[in-house]
Each structure stands twice: as C-alpha cells, then as structure tokens.
C-alpha cells in the first residue's frame, strides 16, 4: 500500500500528460459523432499526420539558417499552427471525398466505417512513404524543445510521497491543452457557429429549416475537430520526441474509448473521459503488480481500463456525462 501512495505524485503527472492527449483527440471523435453519428476511424491518423507535419515544419525551419536561432516558443507556435491548419483542411477534404457522397446517396450509416478505415490505411502509408522518402526512416525523432527538468518536492512536505519529476514539455502540453479545451468550450456554447453546430447535432433536418447551411456546419466541425487533432499531434511530438505512422491506431482506439466513457457526443464528457482514462492507465501500469502480488503486471493495464469502462457503461449506459435519451415510440 505504501508503495502505491509513494508513487502517486509521479503517476498523477504522467497520467495527466497522457490524459490531456487523449482528451483532445477524443473531442475530435465526439464532435464528429455528435453531428453525424459516425465513428471516424481516420481521426487517429489525422492526429498522426499532425505530428508529422509538425516534425516537417521543425526540420524545414531548422534548415533555414536565419530561423534556426528563433526562440523555442516561436518555433513551437509555428509548428502547432501549421499542423492545425493543414490537418484541419485535410479533415474537410476527407469529409468531402469520403463521407459527403455517402450522405448524399442516403447510404446506411455503417458504410462510412469502411471509407474511414480505408482512409486510415491510405494516410498511414502515405505518411510513411513521404517520411521514408525524405528522411530515409519513417520513425521520426526531433530534437527536444522544452527539456528543462522540474522536480516537485512532495517528499519534504508529505513524507509518504515520493517526488515527482517532469519536463518543461509537460507544462507546455498542459497549458496548450487547457487553452484549447476552454476556447473550444466557449466556441461551442457562445458563438453563432457553435450554436449552429449544436443545432445540427440535435436535429439536422429542423436545423436546415432554420436556414442553417448543414453541409457548411459539418465542414466546420470537421475542420475544428481535425485541427485540434493535428495540434495534439504536435503536442505529442513535443512530449515524447518520437513519432511513427502507426501511433494513430492505438491512440485512436483509446481516445474513442475515452469519448464513450464520457458520453459520446458530449464535448465536456470527452475532455473528462480522456483525462480519466490517462490517469487510470498510468495508475494501472505502475501499480497492478503491487496490487495483485505479481500475478498481473502492467501488461494488464488496458484490461483494467476496459473493465472500468464496461462497469461504468453497465451502471450508466450513456456514459459519465451523457444524457439518458428517452426513446420515443
């Protein structure tokens, strides 16, 4: 028991980092789902593309002599903005090519699952080809940007805790994520576009009668969701330093799980679900073998997370934040 408590501060810090990443990616899933009732499997790969665009920007800027001495913060801002813009446009493009035609033809909802899986394969390999072609290796590692190490001295205040260490990148990731989350929340609840978005999510047909251009709203949703995903890709790159074309797959599943945990279609739910899932996973990875006396190690961390998810859904079938829908006959 004491071992678990000792580790708590470090687990908290690491879990939050991972949780923030999950949270923003989960928002992309939840926004698209809310509006189209479509599981956009390609979203994880948009996130991945964002991280590669970020790396590409970093490499290009570094190779331009006059820019290489630019302050890290400026560099970072350029990376994140370019990545967000490119992935945002890409998201809109994917929607146009792969989802809109299906909607027009009144195709069954699930068929979009196939196009999204197809797009996901295409993105993974396209990014791999480009990275392989330009750098000779598709596992891309960038130089660390925010390397300063911090130690929070929990131990001297609470002797039963160990200290927690983290890097500057953790602060950057947290601050940027929180800014993104708050501004998105404001955007959705306060602006005209946000209101239109919620209207379309609630009832597409009625919304179109209220002179809302549904297709444009959907495009905007895809733009924002994908741009957030791409920006998170850059954050991921900053935090872990290494990306490969296949990171989107596992992360996509996790983020989708987080979105469901929070109540799919609900933006605040996705944020909360993401952070919760990150914490759960980190806690399980660090402590499972202590708890079970070695019978189950950290390899069971996903089992632990999924069991919690299933339990939550059994007792609250619409997720933690979802509203129970009353089915009308």
């Amino acid at each position: 028991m004491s071992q678990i408590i000792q580790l708590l501060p470090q687990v908290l810090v690491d879990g939050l980092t991972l949780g923030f990443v999950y949270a923003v990616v989960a928002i992309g899933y939840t926004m698209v789902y809310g509006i189209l009732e479509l599981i956009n499997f390609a979203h994880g790969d948009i996130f991945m593309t964002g991280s590669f665009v970020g790396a590409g920007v970093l490499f290009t800027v570094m190779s331009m002599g006059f820019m290489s001495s630019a302050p890290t913060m400026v560099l970072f801002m350029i990376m994140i903005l370019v990545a967000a813009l490119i992935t945002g446009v890409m998201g809109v493009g994917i929607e146009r090519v792969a989802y809109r035609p299906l909607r027009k033809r009144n195709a069954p909802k699930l068929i979009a699952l196939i196009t999204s899986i197809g797009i996901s394969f295409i993105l993974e390999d396209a990014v791999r080809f480009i990275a392989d072609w330009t750098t000779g290796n598709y596992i891309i590692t960038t130089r660390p940007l925010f390397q300063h190490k911090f130690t929070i001295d929990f131990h001297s205040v609470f002797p039963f805790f160990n200290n927690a260490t983290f890097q500057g990148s953790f602060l950057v990731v947290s601050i940027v994520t929180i800014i993104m989350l708050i501004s998105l929340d404001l955007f959705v609840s306060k602006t005209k576009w946000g209101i239109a978005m919620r209207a379309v999510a609630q009832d597409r047909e009625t919304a179109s009668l209220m002179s809302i251009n549904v297709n444009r709203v959907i495009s905007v949703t895809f733009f924002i969701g994908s741009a957030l995903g791409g920006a998170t890709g850059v954050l991921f790159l900053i935090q872990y330093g290494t990306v490969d074309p296949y990171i989107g797959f596992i992360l996509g599943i996790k983020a989708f799980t987080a979105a469901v945990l929070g109540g799919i279609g609900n933006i605040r739910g996705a944020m909360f679900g993401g952070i919760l899932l990150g914490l759960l996973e980190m806690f399980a990875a660090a402590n499972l073998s202590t708890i079970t006396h070695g019978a189950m190690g950290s390899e069971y961390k996903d089992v632990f997370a999924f069991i919690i998810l299933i339990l939550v859904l059994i007792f609250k079938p619409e997720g933690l934040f979802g509203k129970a829908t009353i089915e009308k006959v």
Partner: protein
Amino acid sequence: MRLKRMIPLLAILALAVGLIAGCGKSGGSAGGLKVIKIATQSPLSGGSATLGEAIKNGAQLALDDQQKAFNKKGYKLVLSPYDDMGDPKKGVSNAQAISADNAVLAVVGHLNSGVAIPSSQVYQKNNLSMVSPAATATAVTDRELSTVNRVCARDDFQGPAGANYAIKTLGVKKIFIIQDKTPYGSGLAAAFRDEAKKLGATILGYEGITVGEKDFSGVVSKAAAAKPDLIYFGGVYAEGALIVKQARAQGLTIPVMGGDGMDSSTSVQIAGSGIKGVYYSTVVGDVTKTEKGRKFAAAYKAKFKKNVEGYSAYGYDSAAVLLEGISKAIDKNGGKLPTRQAVATAVRGIQDYDGIATKVAFDGKGDNKFAKIYIYKFDKAVYPATEQTEITKK
C-alpha cells in the same frame, strides 16, 4: 438493370485481373540464363518495417554480389520480396505462394518468430530451405525441421549471456525487467531472468508493455521506485529507446541493458544523449571493424541511401549462406539446376561460411554453431556502440 449496377464492380475486377496478367508465368529464362529466385519474407509495412526492410535490402545486396558468379554458371539470380506484415496468416499464405513458384529455391525469412514458426511448416512440406536472420525463439529450431535454419542466436543463449555479463562483470544485484509481450521480447527476457536468478540476483519486477505505444512512464516510475541497479529490456528499439529516454527523464541514471533488438541507429536517434550507459547484446560483430564490413556498409549506403542496420548484415548473411548452399548443390548436380531437397541438404551442411556479421555453421537442428554474443555499450550518443566483450557458446 442488375448487370448495369455491377458494371463498376466488374470494371474493377477486370482491371485487377488485367494487371496480374503478366505474373502468372514464372521461371523460364532471361537472356539464355536460367532464373533462380530467392524469396524474402519480412514485414515491409506496419510497425516493424524498418527491420523487415533492412533484411530485404541486405539480401538484395548479397544477390548483387553473387550475380556474376552465378551468371558464369548459367543462372540469373532474382530477389522476390514478400511482405508478411508481421501477420502469421499472411506469412503462411505467402509461404504457399512462394512454394508454388518453382523458380524459388530458398527463402530468407521472417523477422518475427511468431510468423516464422507456422510459415516454416509450409516450407518443410515443400522442401524449401529457409534461413532466418532474426527469429530467435527457441521453438523455431526446436521442432527440428530439416529445412529451418537461422544465423542469429537463440534466446536461451543470448539472454543468459547478457545476464552473465550484467552480474559478473557489471556486478549488479537488483534487476528490474521490462518486456514487450512479443515472442521475441518475452523469450529473451524470460531467459535472462532465469539465468539472473540462478546467479543470485534479485528480480525486483517483471513487467510487460504494449508494442506501438509511446508512453511507458507508468512502468518506468514503478522501476524507479524499486531502485534497481539495472533495467533489462526484452524487445525492440522502438520501445526500448523510449523507455531509456523516459527513465532518464525521471532521473534514473542506472545502466539499461537490452538484446539485439536494441541494435539499431534509430535507438540513438530516439533516446538522444540518454543512450549513454545502455548495454546491448548481439550476435553481430562490429561491422565497421573489418574491411569486409566497411565495404558492405558503403555499398549498402550507396544502393539504398540508408545507413546499415544490424539486421541488414543478418539479411545479407542469410541470403549469402543460401546462395552458397545453392552453388554447392549446382556443382554437385553437374551444373544442372538442383532440386529444392538438394539445396536444403546443402544449406544444412554448411560448416565454414564466413560472413559480414557472423561465421555460419549449422548444427543438427539448424542453429548456428558459431553464433557469438558480443556485448556493446553506448559511451557516447553515436551508433554503433563500443564493443565490450565477446562471449562464445559453451
């Protein structure tokens, strides 16, 4: 009406069919030379494609080097690369397709033991000789199939060799083991653990991670809290180097040790300066030490515009061993094309091949008698690392 709706489908089918039109035929002759094909099977897409491609490229280079010698005998060598995607099902289906191609006389193959084991059942049925550059699990050769060989070391040789070095030379007492839950990583880590226990070290933890993830801080903080003298990692560099990096970020400066999966330039790229103090065991001697090795590295760089990896040398040697077997079989057959059976026997009989990475002599099971283990250590953040010692099989 129905047929009209089928038109797009039919069009696609027709296109696909039209495209393959050319590949129905195999064998035959090119410019009066008989074609001999060597197939490679390794993951060319998916998470471990770097390693799979290194194997394919290494084999390609071996074929290029031997091309002239074979031309003189009246044969032309062609490499036929297959992508097994790291998927056992795909590996078996490819193995069937390879076996069906009569021009293929041997296979360089399989990175993953999990794919090598079921696929080799197919090669065995077709008498097709296979040399694996990388499948280290004991079950690969313990089934005693006459066609299955490997140039790399077995897990139960490499793991204990690492444990011996760590405990006897580095003098560590408390060890924390992390493994990646693949046949390769678990096999290696288990062999290391058993030997380390025998030698009297304490195992503080034995944890698994998920391949493909990037955040291992949970396991790393557990390791840090246990205060070990050494972390051993059974797995491949993509995860291993990140574990090193994240351990350093948490202030762990203790040595980390891994197997030949850590033997890649990408390790250094990922972990950066944190790679200092990392040890790894491998069967590949320092390629840049020998004249032959330097030549190989230069040729590799010139042809593929990539730096040579540990597995490229294995790939080269696997293909070269097979070619030597084929060439012997041809001579024995009076210059005529030998049967697959004859090639398999000749390959198993090889006792004195001296390659880029390793000397090769197969024992009765197909394991390499010469497989030596070298222990390397990163003193600086440069690949390749410095050789510490070499361990020969008892």
